[in-house]
């Protein structure tokens, strides 16, 4: 930082030349939009149609917003003297994008964001630029779809956890309930824990939201931010378990039709509830950490 201040104190004309003029930053942004617009149009019809990745466009918007918010810091940074590594990274990113677009690989298209953006940042400002924009760049990882095998295994694990815990709870409450694989038998009803019930997609979007929240509100308190991030997955899983429990009880007491109705409704309600829980948890963290500092 001390070096920056010496540069900042150089005479005006030279200083403005060696920082990035605002209009050039705007031109780069426009070129990026021109480049990625057709990609987003394609993703909107394919990957982003899937529930697990429907949060993709919001991630992109959030990243743009976060980068724009840091513009005043960026425009004061001096340019690096070593643009070559950044150029290489940018070329790698463009090659990935090319492969993704010509082969229709959503994974490659979305993953190209990271080398393209960080390549440009490195070319202009070097490592100092990345230090300013580390979060938006990292956040872009949420637009990349997870590999199929990972989804398959994770989904299975979550389903098993949900089936086990809900059956155990209902048994403890004295309900006539048994399970065989992913089929839960409760009274006269047979219910299947489907892939969608695993709650994997709500975990993904909640994690993204939680990370954004932690960055925006708790950036100055690393301990609080870490606690927040660690709490996201347990909260999402607990809420999803609760949802399953409610659905099983609804079906058992009020029949299949009611169960089905609630099945569609509870998804959104539970997402909001998880979000509310996260905020409440954060409030308690604020109180806790304030107490510590005093």
């Amino acid at each position, binding site marked *: 930082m001390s070096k920056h201040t010496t540069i900042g104190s150089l005479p005006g004309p030279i200083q403005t030349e060696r920082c990035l003029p605002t209009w*050039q930053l705007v031109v780069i942004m426009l*070129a990026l939009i021109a*480049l990625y617009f057709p990609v987003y149009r394609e993703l909107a019809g394919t990957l982003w149609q899937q529930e697990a990745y429907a949060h993709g466009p919001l991630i992109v918007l959030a990243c743009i917003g976060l980068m724009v918010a840091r513009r005043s810091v960026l425009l004061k940074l001096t340019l690096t*003297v070593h643009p070559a590594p950044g150029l290489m990274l*940018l070329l790698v990113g463009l090659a990935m*994008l090319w492969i993704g677009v010509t082969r*229709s690989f959503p994974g490659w298209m979305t993953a190209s964001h990271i080398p393209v953006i960080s390549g440009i940042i490195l070319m202009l400002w070097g490592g100092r630029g990345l230090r300013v924009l580390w979060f938006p760049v990292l956040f872009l990882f949420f637009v990349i779809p997870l590999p199929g095998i990972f989804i398959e295994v994770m989904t299975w694990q979550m389903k098993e956890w949900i089936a086990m815990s809900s059956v155990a709870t209902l048994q403890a409450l004295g309900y006539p309930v048994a399970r*065989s*694989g992913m089929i839960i038998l409760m009274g006269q009803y047979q219910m299947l824990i489907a892939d969608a019930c695993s709650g994997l997609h709500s975990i993904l979007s909640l994690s993204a939201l939680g990370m954004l929240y932690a960055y925006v509100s708790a950036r100055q308190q690393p301990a609080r931010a870490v606690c927040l991030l660690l709490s996201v997955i347990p909260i999402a899983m607990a809420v999803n378990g609760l949802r399953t429990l409610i659905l099983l009880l609804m079906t058992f007491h009020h029949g299949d039709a009611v169960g089905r109705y609630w099945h569609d409704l509870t998804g959104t309600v539970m997402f909001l509830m998880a979000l509310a829980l996260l905020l409440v948890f954060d409030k308690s963290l604020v109180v806790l950490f304030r107490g510590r500092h005093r």
Partner: protein
Amino acid sequence: MIRLPPPWLSFTRVSVIVSLLCLMAGVIWLNPKPDASGFEREAVVMENWIPHSFGGWRLDDTVNVGPLSLIAAAESETVYVQTLERIFVDDDGRRIMLSLAYGDRQEGDLQAHRPEFCYKAQGFQLSALHDIELATVQGVIPLRRMEARRPGRSEPVSYWLTIGDRPALPGFHRKLAQLRHGLTGKTPDGLLIRVSSLDENPEQAYALHNEFIMTLIESLPPDLRRRLAGAPRSASPNLDA
């Protein structure tokens, strides 16, 4: 003291960045969209794929012990575009359950689910998983075997997948086949073919599965042979993969 870049630097550098981005944008703009569906993908009508009788086997609609529904376990219409489930019986009264699931985009989330998950989801215990290779008229196909058991039902299972025009099993080779097709600019479609029977003796069941699969592939017309067992090859699919 750090070296300062020359005053004209930002303009040059920004020009390089912007022209690279615009060049790529132009290329993407001009590039005709890849055939997202990949292979010549006329509407698939699975109903007529499997003949009602072939080589000593005939369709059996007398029993109600249907094969496990693939849809029930996958529960997601995005994974399987179409499924076909049939029971065949031979002259000795031996029964085979055949399930086909066709998906027109075999990548990421949309790829076929492993039957392992499907059986486990319905309360089966799986044991003795192993892979073998079966020689057919169309070439060697890899088969995965497993013994699925739950109280009152013992069901040895053999299955394989196709990715585009190659037979494969889930795992590394499936990934490889997907990548290979990807490099030709096509998203492969795929088929999951599952053969099973109710039998306490797995060895006996597997011998019957082999016989059934070989006879079935032999009796199909060339285009369906290709669908089920891949393009004709002599070498093992794993060796040339």
